[in-house]
C-alpha cells in the first residue's frame, strides 16, 4: 500500500502541462491541518490525523484558478528549515522547488508557528498565509488581528477552517497576491525578538477556564491514571476489532459467499468437475463441494481469502485506528510507553510504526521516517518486518488456529511479542549510533469527525484492495502452475530434512513457506488445507515461522527503499537468524525432541 495509501488523486484530474502552471507548496509546522487544506484545495484524498508526522512524503494535486493552473504539493510538516528527521528533509527539499508557498499556521499555536514562518519568508519565496484552526482559536478565546499580522509579515493572511472549508475560497482568490516578504535573512535571536513583538501586537488571549478537555488530557497522561487507562483502551481496541471483524464475517461476507456458491458450482459442472482449467478456476472439490478455504482456485479461495476473511478485519482495524489517530490519543500512548521503546533502541514514537504496521507493514515502515537516527529507523523497520503480523496475517492466524481454541492463538502472539522485545534489546546493544530521547508535541484532544474518519478508513481499505487482491489472485494462479509442474514435490523433498528435523514439521509445509513470499495470508490459507496433517502445536510453529521468516513482496520493496541495500541485507540476516532460532526453540518447547 505504498503511495496509494498515503495519497490518492481524483480520477478526473486534469493532466498535461500548462504555460500558466505554477507550483504551490503547503508547508508549516506539524499537525496544523496542511493535509486537510490540501485536500480541500485539490479534491485529492490524503491521510490526515491528529498527531505530528502523519504526512511523511509529498503528494501532488492540481487546481485551476481563472485561466491559471497550479500544481499543489502537500509536504510533511517541520519545525524549522534545519530538518531533524527524514520527513522534515522532504519538507525542506520541497520548499526549494516551489514557486509559491502557502504557509499553513495553527492559529491556536501562533507563536511557535511564526518562527518557521519567519524563516520561510526570509528565503524570499512569494508566500501567502493560511491561519488555520480559526474555529478552535475563537473557541479558546484567542483573537488574532489579521490585518496587523499581514502588515508585520508583508504577505497576505487568510483565516481558514480547513475542516469545514471556511475561508478556503478566499485563500484561493489570494493565490495571485502572493508576495515576497520584506523580512531580511537574520539570526535566530533576532527572529525570536521579532516573533515576540509581532505576537504582542496581533494576539489577544482572553482567559480561559479549565475545561473538561483539560482534565481529560491530564488524567490520560499522568502515569498513575494514564497507564491503567491505556491498558484498558488497548484491550478495548482489540476487542472492537474482533467484534466488528467477526460481525462483518458472520453477517455480511459469509452470507454473500453462500449466495455466490451456486454460481461457482454451476461453473464447476460446466467445466466437467475436473481438468486443468477447472483446477485453476475452481480448484479441487472437497466432498463434492466447493470449499472456499481449501479448494485453492482463483474464483474460490482466491476471492474468499481477501474478501471473505481478511477484508472484514481490515475494515475493523482501520476504523479503530482512525479513532485513535483522530482523537489525538496516539502521542499520549507514545509518552506513556516511551520507557519500553527506549530500551529497544527507539523512543515512544515507535508506537506509531507499530500500530500502522499491524494494518499493513508498508505504511508502518514509511512511518519510521519520523524517527531521528538511522539506528532507530533500522530497529523499528526490522522489528516490524520480523515480528509484527499485518492485519491480513492476523486474520489468517485466527482462521487457522481459531477452531483449535484461543490458547494456540495466544501462543503465537506471545512468541511474537518476546521476539519483538528480544530483537529490540539486542539490536539496541550491538548497533552503533544514537538513540535520541523522545521529543513530541502533544496535540489537544479533538472530536473525530465521522465523515473524515470514514473517509480515511475507506481510503486505506481501497489501498488494501488495490494492492493485495491482485497479488492474492496471482498467488493462487502461481500455486496452481507450480503444483501442476510438480515443483512442490521437489521442494518438499529438498527441504524435508530441515523441516522435519529442525522445525518438527512435515515436508509439505516447505512450499507454503515459499508462497509466503508472495502473500503471507495466502500461505496461511494453504496451511489450512494441510491442517489435518498437523497437530495444533505444529500449526502454531508453522504460523509463527510464516510471520517471521520473510516479509511479503510489498514490504520487501519498501524496506529496500527505506533502508538501502545494506540495511535490507542486515534486516534479512536478523530475520533468518531469529526465525531459525525461534523455530528450533518452539519445536523443543512445544513438541519436544
Amino acid at each position, binding site marked *: 500500500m505504498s503511495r496509494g495509501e498515503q495519497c490518492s488523486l481524483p480520477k478526473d484530474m486534469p493532466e498535461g502541462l500548462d504555460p500558466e502552471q505554477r507550483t504551490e507548496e503547503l508547508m508549516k509546522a506539524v499537525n496544523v491541518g496542511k493535509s486537510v487544506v490540501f485536500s480541500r484545495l485539490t479534491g485529492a484524498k490524503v491521510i490526515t490525523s491528529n498527531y505530528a508526522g502523519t504526512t511523511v512524503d509529498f503528494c501532488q494535486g492540481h487546481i485551476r484558478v481563472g485561466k491559471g493552473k497550479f500544481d499543489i504539493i502537500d509536504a510533511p510538516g517541520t*519545525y*524549522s528549515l*534545519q530538518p*531533524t528527521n527524514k520527513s522534515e528533509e522532504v519538507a525542506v527539499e520541497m520548499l526549494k522547488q516551489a514557486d509559491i508557498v502557502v504557509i499553513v499556521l495553527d492559529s*491556536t*499555536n501562533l*507563536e*511557535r508557528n511564526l*518562527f*518557521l514562518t519567519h524563516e520561510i519568508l526570509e528565503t524570499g519565496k512569494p508566500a501567502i498565509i493560511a491561519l488555520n484552526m480559526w474555529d478552535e482559536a475563537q473557541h*479558546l478565546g484567542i483573537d488574532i488581528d489579521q490585518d496587523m499580522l499581514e502588515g508585520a509579515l508583508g504577505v497576505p493572511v487568510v483565516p481558514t477552517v480547513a475542516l469545514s472549508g471556511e475561508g478556503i475560497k478566499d485563500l484561493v482568490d489570494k493565490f495571485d497576491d502572493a508576495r515576497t516578504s520584506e523580512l531580511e535573512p537574520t539570526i*535566530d535571536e533576532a527572529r*525570536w525578538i521579532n516573533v515576540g513583538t509581532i505576537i504582542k501586537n496581533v494576539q489577544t488571549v482572553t482567559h480561559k477556564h479549565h475545561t473538561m478537555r483539560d482534565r481529560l*488530557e*491530564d488524567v490520560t*497522561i*499522568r*502515569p498513575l491514571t*494514564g497507564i491503567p487507562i491505556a491498558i484498558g483502551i488497548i484491550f478495548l481496541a482489540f476487542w472492537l476489532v474482533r467484534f466488528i471483524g467477526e460481525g462483518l464475517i458472520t453477517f455480511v461476507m459469509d452470507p454473500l459467499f453462500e449466495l455466490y456458491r451456486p454460481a461457482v458450482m454451476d461453473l464447476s459442472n460446466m467445466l466437467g468437475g475436473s481438468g486443468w482449467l477447472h483446477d485453476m478456476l475452481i480448484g479441487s472439490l472437497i466432498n463434492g463441494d466447493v470449499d472456499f478455504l481449501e479448494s485453492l482456485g482463483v474464483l474460490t479461495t482466491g476471492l474468499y481469502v481477501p474478501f471473505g476473511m481478511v477484508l472484514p478485519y481490515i475494515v475493523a482495524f482501520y476504523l479503530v485506528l482512525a479513532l485513535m489517530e483522530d482523537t489525538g490519543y496516539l*502521542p499520549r500512548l*507514545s*509518552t*506513556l510507553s*516511551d*520507557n519500553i521503546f*527506549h530500551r529497544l533502541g527507539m*523512543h*515512544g514514537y515507535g508506537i506509531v510504526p507499530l500500530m500502522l504496521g499491524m494494518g499493513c507493514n508498508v505504511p508502518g515502515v514509511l512511518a519510521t521516517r519520523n524517527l531521528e537516527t538511522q539506528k532507530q529507523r533500522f530497529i523499528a523497520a526490522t522489528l516490524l518486518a520480523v515480528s509484527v503480523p499485518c492485519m491480513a496475517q492476523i486474520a489468517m492466524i485466527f482462521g487457522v488456529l481459531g477452531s483449535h481454541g484461543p490458547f494456540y492463538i495466544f501462543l503465537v502472539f506471545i512468541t511474537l511479542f518476546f521476539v519483538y522485545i528480544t530483537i529490540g534489546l539486542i539490536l539496541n546493544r550491538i548497533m552503533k549510533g544514537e538513540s*535520541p*530521547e*523522545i*521529543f*513530541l*508535541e*502533544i496535540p*489537544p484532544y479533538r472530536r473525530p469527525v465521522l465523515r473524515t474518519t470514514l473517509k480515511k478508513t475507506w481510503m486505506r481499505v481501497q489501498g488494501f484492495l488495490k494492492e493485495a487482491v491482485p497479488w492474492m489472485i496471482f498467488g493462487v494462479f502461481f500455486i496452481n502452475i507450480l503444483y501442476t509442474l510438480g515443483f512442490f514435490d521437489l521442494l518438499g523433498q529438498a527441504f524435508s530434512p530441515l523441516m522435519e528435523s529442525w522445525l518438527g514439521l512435515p515436508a509439505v509445509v516447505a512450499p507454503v513457506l515459499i508462497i509466503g513470499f508472495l502473500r503471507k495470508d495466502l500461505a496461511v490459507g494453504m496451511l489450512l488445507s494441510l491442517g489435518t496433517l498437523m497437530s495444533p502445536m505444529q500449526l502454531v510453529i508453522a504460523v509463527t515461522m510464516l510471520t517471521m521468516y520473510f516479509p511479503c513482496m510489498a514490504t520487501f520493496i519498501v524496506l529496500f527503499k527505506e533502508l538501502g541495500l545494506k540495511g535490507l541485507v542486515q534486516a534479512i540476516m536478523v530475520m533468518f537468524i531469529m526465525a531459525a532460532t525461534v523455530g528450533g526453540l518452539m519445536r523443543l518447547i512445544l513438541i519436544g525432541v
Partner: protein
Amino acid sequence: MEKTLAIMKQGESGIITRMEGGEEFKRKLRTIGIREGKRVLLVTKQYFGGPVVLKVDGRDTSIGRGMARRIFVDV
C-alpha cells in the same frame, strides 16, 4: 529558586531561565516554543526515568528526562 525541569514536581510551574547543551539541542527546543523567559508548567513525569510532560503556551510537549535535566527553571 532555580532548579531543573527534571526535579520539579507535578503541578509546579516557573519561568525558564536557561538551557544547557549544544546549539542544535537548544534550537530544537526553541522552535517548538520551549525557550528562555517562558512560563512552564510541569504536567507530569513518567515512571522509571521516563519522559517529562510540560506545558508552555497551553500546549503539551513530551521530552526525555535527559533533556529535562538540562532545562533550568526559576520557581
